């Protein structure tokens, strides 16, 4: 009986862990786990143009560089209709996001990544988004201080977007119109490290420290895509 119970426990743990750590079938990896081939840094985003995105033990690590300057790591390729699979592990007090159909300057649909805060919400980045979405049930499935999987489906010129976190659907939304600049219905996938500091106090205060605590990091792995026709 004890052995059966042990098998049950082990099986349960394996099942829970199966939610992350592996790219689902039918998806094509877009991060090789070794370097940032196929990706580039935006040189025209206001987030910053010199962020520290690097690969460490098969994981993309994102940090500000120099102090207070964030940035965007973007796919070289543009995607229109797709499902994106990505696993993320985020420090608290570090505001980033997964950008969808982004232009080179970082105007995009964004799935927010911030704790405490609105992780999983759909917002507009440099675009006035007609309809936002809230991941109200995110905390029910969230694994604190651990890897969490995001699956995002985005299709159609007038975007229809669906988000699953750890395989549980958070929202499914159809925008009333395409809000992207120049009516673009395709763009890059990008990972955001938010800025905090201005170049000089003469410009203003900048962002509060909690936007990206000094030394904080976001981590990403198992990034894969399924293009949809």
């Amino acid at each position, binding site marked *: 009986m004890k052995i059966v119970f042990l098998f049950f426990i082990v099986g349960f743990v394996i099942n829970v862990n199966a939610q992350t750590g592996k790219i689902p079938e039918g998806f094509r990896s877009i991060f090789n786990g070794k370097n940032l081939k196929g990706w580039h840094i935006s040189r025209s985003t206001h987030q910053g143009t010199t962020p520290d995105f690097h690969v460490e033990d098969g994981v993309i690590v994102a940090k500000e560089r120099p102090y207070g300057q964030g940035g965007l790591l973007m796919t070289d390729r543009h995607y229109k209709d797709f499902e994106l699979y990505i696993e993320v592990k985020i420090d608290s007090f570090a505001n980033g996001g997964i950008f969808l159909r982004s232009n080179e300057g970082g105007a995009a649909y964004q799935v927010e990544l911030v704790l405490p805060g609105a992780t999983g919400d759909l917002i507009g980045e*440099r675009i006035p988004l007609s309809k936002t979405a809230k991941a109200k049930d995110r905390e029910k499935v969230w694994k604190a201080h651990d890897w969490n999987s995001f699956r995002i489906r985005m299709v159609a010129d007038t975007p229809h977007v669906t988000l699953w976190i750890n395989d549980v659907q958070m929202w499914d939304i159809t925008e009333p119109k395409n809000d992207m600049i120049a009516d673009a219905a395709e763009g890059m996938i990008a990972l955001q490290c938010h800025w905090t500091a201005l170049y000089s106090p003469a410009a203003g205060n900048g962002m*509060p420290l909690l936007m990206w605590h000094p030394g904080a990091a976001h981590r990403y792995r198992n990034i894969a895509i399924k293009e949809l026709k």
Partner: protein
Amino acid sequence: MTLRPYKILLLCLLPASILYSQNTTFTNNIGMKFVLVRPGSMIVGRFQPTVFKTSQSSDSIYKLALEMAKRDASPGFKVNIAYPFYMSQFEVTQEQWEKVMGANPSYFKGDKVKDDASQHPVENVAWNDAQKFIKKLNELEKGKAVYRLPTEFEWEYAARAGAEDDISWSEIFKSAVIATTTTNMVGKKKPNAWGLYDMLGNVWEWVQDPYNEKIFADPVPLKKGKEHVLKGASFYGDVKNATYMTHAAGPASKYDVGFRIVMEVK
């Protein structure tokens, strides 16, 4: 020949008198307006990162942020602009581009905007396209003037218009077309102290210099690079980067990139 003191004084004053005898504005044959930019100096790349503490972050985090900000701060370097030049008062418009090149590559043309698209900046022009425009403009002027892209330092010097430190957010909002979804007609926001419009916002502007992949320019610009420097931010930019300090680079998003030109003082 013996130089008497008054002759020495006259000789000293001559370059200045030549300079100040230049017209302060100039309009060329296709209606491009230029403003005379006089010599001077500025500090480029001074980095004094802000640290904004609120009650939600602890004292230890604040201390660490201050240490990191101090570690990464940089005094910048002095740049002398030793000669006068004319800077175009506005970004090159779609109308001006068409007059010289015969076709309009812009995305935000015709009914893509609600007002007079011909007075919007030309965009969707690569750095090489800007060079082709300048070459053709020089040919049209038949040697009467020499046009070229500004260097990054010329651009920043003209954009600062005497400002030593960074520009405040309230001033950016008054002078820059940012946080919107299309380009705007040129010259509709507040000009800078030297009468130049849209140095910040509307479209990114190409300059001559290759990009060094650093946060700011080097004292000696590169001669070669994969991309060229962009200055000034675009219509969907943020106050964060719509400052003359921003040192960005192509390709950007094409519909957000235009340019302005320099006319050399003879």
